[in-house]
């Protein structure tokens, strides 16, 4: 049918005229898209709270007393012999004390001051054999009851060695037991953790594309809206 073929022709002509227009509209839309950049080609980064240098200090947790031990009494550091010896001769075991209330023994069945402290000379510690040792050698005291841990410590498997990995180095120093453990309550306290990573997940919506470093204030672990953990379920709890 001739009318049919001419219709086709008309249609193809219309298509020919419209195609450039469609192409143009598409290009214009593309231009607008590229300029507005709605998805963003930037790297998402966020405000990173700088960790304060004091929070990553490598000095030991505790300061050990050393050879002339002092007790802080009434805000003053006094040597043990200032009171003990001349003034206080006799000793009572396991009785409530008139002094040193801050010493709260939490060391299992090791609940006697004189298991460790010497009865006569208070600026000395005493081994089971009666031998007096100086405060600096307190690890020998611990060794009596914690043989395996002490052996590990000697071999560098327990505790911490600072300074150098070279065994003959003079910088090398192993922390003493009492630089980590309080001899009276040796279990470790819990710690406040430093902030977790941000790189391993997308930042929360409101923090996108903020290229800023905020240093100054020490970091605190603030709860994030994307936190993934929840309190342990029964399944996790019974796993051990």
């Amino acid at each position, binding site marked *: 049918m001739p*009318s049919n073929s001419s219709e086709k022709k008309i249609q193809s002509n219309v298509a020919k005229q419209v195609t450039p227009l469609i192409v143009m509209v598409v290009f214009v839309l*593309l231009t607008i898209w590229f300029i507005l950049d709605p998805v963003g080609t930037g790297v998402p980064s966020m405000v990173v709270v700088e*960790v304060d240098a004091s929070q990553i200090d*490598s000095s030991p947790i505790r300061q050990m007393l050393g050879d002339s031990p002092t007790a802080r009494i009434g805000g003053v550091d006094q040597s043990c012999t200032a009171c003990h010896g001349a003034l206080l001769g006799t000793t009572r075991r396991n009785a409530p004390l008139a002094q040193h209330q801050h010493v709260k023994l939490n060391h299992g069945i090791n609940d006697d001051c004189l298991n460790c402290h010497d009865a006569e000379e208070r600026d000395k510690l005493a081994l089971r054999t009666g031998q007096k040792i100086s405060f600096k050698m307190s690890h020998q005291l611990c060794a009596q009851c914690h043989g395996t841990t002490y052996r590990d410590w000697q*071999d560098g498997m327990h505790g911490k060695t600072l300074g150098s990995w070279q065994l003959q180095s003079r910088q090398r120093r192993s922390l003493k037991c009492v630089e980590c453990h309080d001899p009276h309550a040796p279990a470790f306290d819990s710690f406040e953790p430093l902030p*977790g990573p941000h790189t391993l*997940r997308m930042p929360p919506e409101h923090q996108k594309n903020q290229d800023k470093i905020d240093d100054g204030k020490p970091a605190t672990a603030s709860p994030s809206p994307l936190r993934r953990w929840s309190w342990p379920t029964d399944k996790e709890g019974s796993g051990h």
Partner: protein
Amino acid sequence: MTMDPHNKEDQASDQGCQGSCGCGSGDGKVSRRSFLRVGAAALGGMAALTAALSPLRELDPDDLPSVEEFIQKHYKEMSGEQMQAALGRIEKDVQKRFGVTPEVADIKPLDGVEFVYALNLSRCIGCRKCVHACVAENNQSRSPEVQYIRVLEMPRGTTDLEQGDHHYDRPKVPSDHHYYMPVQCHQCASPPCVKVCPIEATWQESDGITVVDYDWCIGCRYCEAACPYWARRFNFAEPQIPKDKLNKKMSYLSNRPRHKGVIEKCHYCLQRTRQGQMPACLEVCPVGARKFGNVLDADSDVTQILKHKRVFVLKEDVGTLPRFFYYFDERYPRSQGGEA
């Protein structure tokens, strides 16, 4: 059916264009209308192209490598003199970027030394001090954030890494129901990351440390994909470090500041350890969970641990032979139901 009168004109103007082209006429003449139509489309195309290229406006000439950097040789092929020149260039670069004068050196491995790391999982409490001490020591980018060490909070009773959580966010650690597993580069003896590098920008040194030449790296990130421990980090944007936080003691293969588009990773603090010091993550650990030393020395801490403790490595079955070992002590502390 008769022809639609409205189409007459159009048809006339398109006469002669029987070809398949939609452009102008077959006899070489372009009618004004079709020219305008096609021209408009072409103009639109140009605009779109320009807009698409517009991010180039933000290109900073400083981002481009300098001539010296461009012609610099591979690390292993540089002579002493050329290395000195490279170190000088890096010093100037750091000065320009941060306004501080660093001490850049090229610290070589020691003879008879093979470094090994051991980590006591019964001790680690997940405080993340190691993560941040590492960032400070090794001049990692603060924004976007780059960290070499990831600390996983793991439910007790499994070593399945899939169950670990990086983002634990507790007021206090440790949690009674979890243990903590820090993961960083394991300095494998058979490193897949080195094998996949197409240009030898990363290699294993004689002391076992796998290093990256940041000037040679092209940023293809093959190594990042090849690493089974997720230990490599890519600089997606120009690293930002506050200048007062910059560690001025730098080494070519380790903690000198990186540029955008290169890979970096833990190198056991080689600027410290090759001079006898301990890595920064070990020094800061408050519980003494981290142990480091020379495995070729029979008396070193790590040799003792390998001898006396039940050590294991992560993903042993992939055959990477890590130089990073984990171990547990025989007992959990009393608070976890063990005994003294």
